């Protein structure tokens, strides 16, 4: 190809190079970037943790608190957590400029207070989750503040009493 021909094509086509970072990036409507958890909406139910394919989301209880951690460095940006969240607390943003010099900077945490079993004192669900459950279906406090283990024991005790009473 002659130089004149190349010049002609170049002039006809014009500039194709993107000027990023000096112009906005090419973000399509379908693009999914980092997810964002709204701490005022999240219950700490753990549904997103169960569904996250690479375990980028983790919910770890420690003492009186449970920490929902989002490690964007392992996220595959599938958006499944946003789909499954019952509280609609997760939003898929278009953020992609996430580079960091340390792994700690790639983590974000939401800290939940844990409610305790009224019988054995073991940490059960998060307080936010209890509040939500009580709001949507009012149940007596003696049920919702009892951990599954104590509930089972209590039920077994009651059943034994019944059976014992019946045999006499």
């Amino acid at each position, binding site marked *: 190809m002659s130089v004149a021909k190349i010049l002609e094509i170049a002039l006809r086509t014009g500039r194709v190079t993107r000027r990023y*970072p000096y112009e906005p990036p090419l973000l399509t409507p379908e693009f999914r970037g980092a997810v964002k958890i709204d701490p005022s909406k999240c219950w700490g139910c753990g549904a997103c943790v169960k569904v996250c394919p690479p375990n980028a989301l983790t919910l770890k209880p420690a003492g009186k608190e449970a920490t929902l951690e989002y490690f964007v*460095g392992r996220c595959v940006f599938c958006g499944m957590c946003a789909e499954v969240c019952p509280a609609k607390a997760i939003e898929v943003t278009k953020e*992609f*400029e996430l*580079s960091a010099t340390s792994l700690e900077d790639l983590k974000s945490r939401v800290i939940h207070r844990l409610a305790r079993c009224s019988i054995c004192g073991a940490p059960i669900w998060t307080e936010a989750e209890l509040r939500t459950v009580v709001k949507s279906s009012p149940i007596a406090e003696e049920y919702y503040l009892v951990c599954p283990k104590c509930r089972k024991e209590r039920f077994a005790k009651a059943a034994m009493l019944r059976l014992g009473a019946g045999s006499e």
Partner: protein
Amino acid sequence: MLEVSSVNIAKALRAIKKSVWVYHLNSGSCNACDIEVLDALTPYFDVERFGIKLVGSPRHADVILFTGPVTRESLPKVVKTIKAMPRPRLILVLGSCGIGGGIWWDTYSTLGGFKKLEEILRENGVEVDRVVYVPGCPVRPEAIIYGMLLLLGLVEQKSKRVEVVASEG
């Protein structure tokens, strides 16, 4: 062990700022990140605007573009490649795989990301001077450019650790 002080790194960064030679190292990625690296090198994104140029040997490289979760098969070669690089060793870790293992974070056949590799490198006496992690799956070409600018110290880091307590009422 040869120590390169932070002063030297600043000096080296100043020296390479407008001419960065990169070497592309795939440690067993799914190839999507590698295609995005090629994408960033095409005239469409044209990283030669920043003087970034692909080279064919780690001995010529200033920066390694690192992709993949480090499979066991690739580990000895990866260590050898990074060892062949001259100091200061600057590494741009691309993709969820490179950073935290991605969806292969706990499989038997991978190391699960750069953190473990860094330990192995240290055991082998290979020091890495600066690492920038670029999340994405795959990483966008723009994200690679942004990560590179962060590595060179031309832009400010946006990500930072966030810790919030869920609402009380």
